[in-house]
């Protein structure tokens, strides 16, 4: 039995907003793999919940008319990984969320919850930041969009306003077209573990596969929220596909990150991981894009 004051089951997105307006103190619950654990832990004990678990309209992955990939937030990690559109256009996201927890956790945990909890170690976070995701939120004043970099405010805090909920994660066509990415999660165990560091790199190569047209890299646990490494990207963009470019990007990344020492790992280990994982993920992304090192 959970210490819950009251739970309201939303019947539609509009109903969810209505419930959130009526119960301003309420917390949104989707899958529950964070919220229920925090209730059990005492941190959220006695809370009021608005559940969006039964909102099938917020499940699945779709393609908008303009080619924008629309990822609905209550989609479970398992369903992200198995989705044909994700596999075709954004495979690295499916691979990244396949590293979350274990199979049962991936069946209940949702991509929206993974971002809305504002946690830096979220396995989807770095990849969504590296692909310039746009967060679509719905609230009493209607729908608004925000780049994911502005969505993450600080550790544990995202830009959702009162009575607002995330209703889609959008990946514009320009962002995924001809783009290949790779995510590396470094953790102490192969399952049921939280990333010591997560690194997601994606590249778009020139037609002859000799030049890096665009490289984007983001990390989880290298700072309070998932964040990009502009210096590493600057070292890579427009440069030849070569081991030197990969090396230079890995080194440059160090000037962009600010990991801390925690009980999981020291700052020094995390810095070493930033450089090493950037190189490895970059090299693998080049390979996936058809380039040769």
């Amino acid at each position: 039995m959970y210490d819950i004051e009251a739970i309201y089951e939303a019947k539609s997105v509009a109903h969810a907003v209505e419930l959130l307006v009526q119960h301003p103190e309420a917390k949104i619950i989707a899958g529950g793999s964070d919220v229920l654990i925090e209730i059990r832990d005492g941190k959220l004990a006695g809370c009021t919940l608005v559940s969006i678990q039964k909102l099938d309209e917020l499940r699945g992955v779709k393609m908008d008319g303009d080619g924008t990939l629309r990822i609905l937030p209550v989609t479970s990690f398992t369903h992200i990984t198995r989705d044909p559109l994700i596999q075709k256009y954004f495979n690295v996201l499916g691979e990244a969320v396949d590293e979350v927890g274990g199979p049962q956790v991936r069946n209940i945990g949702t991509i929206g919850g993974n971002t809305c909890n504002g946690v830096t170690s979220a396995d989807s976070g770095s990849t969504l930041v590296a692909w310039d995701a746009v967060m679509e939120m719905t609230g009493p004043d209607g729908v608004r969009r925000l780049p994911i970099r502005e969505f993450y405010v600080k550790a544990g805090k995202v830009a959702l306003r009162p009575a607002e909920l995330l209703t889609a994660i959008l990946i514009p066509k320009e962002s995924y077209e001809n783009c290949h990415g790779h995510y590396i999660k470094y953790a102490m165990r192969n399952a049921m573990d939280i990333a010591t560091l997560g690194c997601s790199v994606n590249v778009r190569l020139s037609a002859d596969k000799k030049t890096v047209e665009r490289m984007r890299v983001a990390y989880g646990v290298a700072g309070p929220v998932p964040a990009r490494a502009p210096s590493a990207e600057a070292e890579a963009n427009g440069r030849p596909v070569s081991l030197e470019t990969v090396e230079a990007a890995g080194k440059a990344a160090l000037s962009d990150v600010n990991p801390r020492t925690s009980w999981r790992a020291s700052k020094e280990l995390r810095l070493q991981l930033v450089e090493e994982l950037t190189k490895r993920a970059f090299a693998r992304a080049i390979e996936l894009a058809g380039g040769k090192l």
Partner: protein
Amino acid sequence: MKQMQLVRCTINGKERETMVDARASLTDMLRNDYRLTSVKKGCEVGECGACNVIIDGECFNSCIYLAVWADGKNIRTLESLLGPNGELSDIQQAFIDEAAVQCGFCTPGFLMTAVEILETGKEYTRDELRKLLAGHLCRCTGYENILNAVEKTMKKRLAESARVGAMNQ
């Protein structure tokens, strides 16, 4: 405040309904209202897999699944594996044969994940099985015997369906 809600669902092939406290987990409902005590209370935070059940074909840790969400769902627990006269299923027998059971507390959870794996009808490598079974903790066996039991049953079922397929050609 006590909030009661009607939950209608299919449990082990039978349609059931009962009033449930909105604060209850699915583990609470299955154990207390339906006496399905194969569903174990282990960590109760979704880490150990002892409370694992199949909902609409996918495995869930019922401890971090609210009972009210089960409305309209098809739920299967270990009890559904028994034959009409209490016979064990092949995967249960394999756990016994391979000494994959010691204290037995993790076994029902492992078995339901094994059922989900076996019902895909796919052949998995040892490494893939390891990943698919990674949501369960066992403090007795060291996992090898559990992997052996699942792998052997998988191979046996695949060989059997290949044999039947060949006979029908």
